[in-house]
Structure formats: structure tokens, C-alpha cells
């Protein structure tokens, strides 16, 4: 399990879960055409890329 702690590091995944002291947003951002997204800030947060497992 890699932990990124440097400023500017990024995470890209289908599903990310987080634990944060405080959040702001999310606010809606309009991209091109039908592409829409949400953006926000997590303060003092840790985030994990979710993984689906089975026995």
C-alpha cells in the first residue's frame, strides 16, 4: 500500500473513500458537453482507493 504525502501528489481511481476533519463543497463544475463533475476540499484528510474483494 503506497501512501502519498507530498503536496501536489494525485490519486486517480473509480472510487475513493476518505476520512477528513472538515470538508467544503462539493460544487458542480461544468466540463464540455454532457461532462459534469463535482469538486471540493478535504481538510486534514486521508483517502483510500476502494477495492472490491471476495472470498
Amino acid at each position, binding site marked *: *500500500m503506497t501512501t502519498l504525502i507530498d503536496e501536489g501528489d494525485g490519486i486517480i481511481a473509480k472510487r475513493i473513500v476518505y*476520512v477528513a476533519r472538515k470538508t467544503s463543497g462539493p460544487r*458542480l463544475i461544468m466540463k464540455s458537453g454532457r461532462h459534469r463533475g463535482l469538486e471540493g476540499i478535504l481538510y486534514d484528510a486521508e483517502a483510500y482507493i476502494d477495492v*472490491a474483494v471476495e472470498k
Partner: protein
Amino acid sequence: MKMLINHGTIWYQVRRDRNMAQKQKLLERKTFQLAIRLSKADYAKIQQLVECGLYKSYADFLRAAVHDKLSSMELVSLTEVGPAEAERMIEDYLVKHPGPAFASEIADALGLEYKITFKTIQKLLEEGRVKKAKNDNPH
């Protein structure tokens, strides 16, 4: 004078019974309707979101907003467990709930911290005690 007071008391009693019956009827309902008054600005913002196609209707937006608020207010108490106990709990969960499950769902169901859940699942994956789900979207 006395009769008037008595009459008043009886009338009050009848009204209270009727109110209780109404409350009981309300409790038996499956859905409830609420009317709210919004500012013009808020109304316009919702209208924009509905027109954008993000929500099917005003009611759809309001339902989602209420749902979000209620789930954000839900207080979750987490249990502190050691790594061995976490391993046992997660394996038990996967035996009892066959099929793919997200690590976050397991954490939520067992009341475990995300940190310990993800670390434990990583260890279980490395040891081959659990495997990554073929379909990475269990829902």
C-alpha cells in the same frame, strides 16, 4: 358558568382524541408530504439544476438534499480492534456475505476504521486469503 367549563373540557377531550387518531393515521403512512417556502434565489438555482438534467424534478432534488443532510448527520461509532481481530471480522463478513464487497462497505458494516480495514484487506490480498473481485463494480 360551571356547565360552560364542563362543556369546554368535554370538547377539549374530543378534540384531543381526534388529534391522536390523526397522529396514528399519519404514523401508519409510508410517505409524507412537506411543504416548504424557498427564497427566489434558491428556487432559481434548483431550477437550473433540474434544467441541466442533474435532477428529474424539484421533488427529486429536495429528496436528495434531505437524504444527504440526514446521512451527514448520522453519527457513526467506530470500534477499535487489533489487526488479528480485524482480519477475523473481515473474513467472517466475506463468508457471511458471499460475492464481491467494497472495502469501504465492509468497514461501514463492521464499524471499523477505514485505515485498519484497508491495511487488513491489503494483507489478506497479499496472503491470498481473499481475492480481488473480477467485477470491480459489485452494484
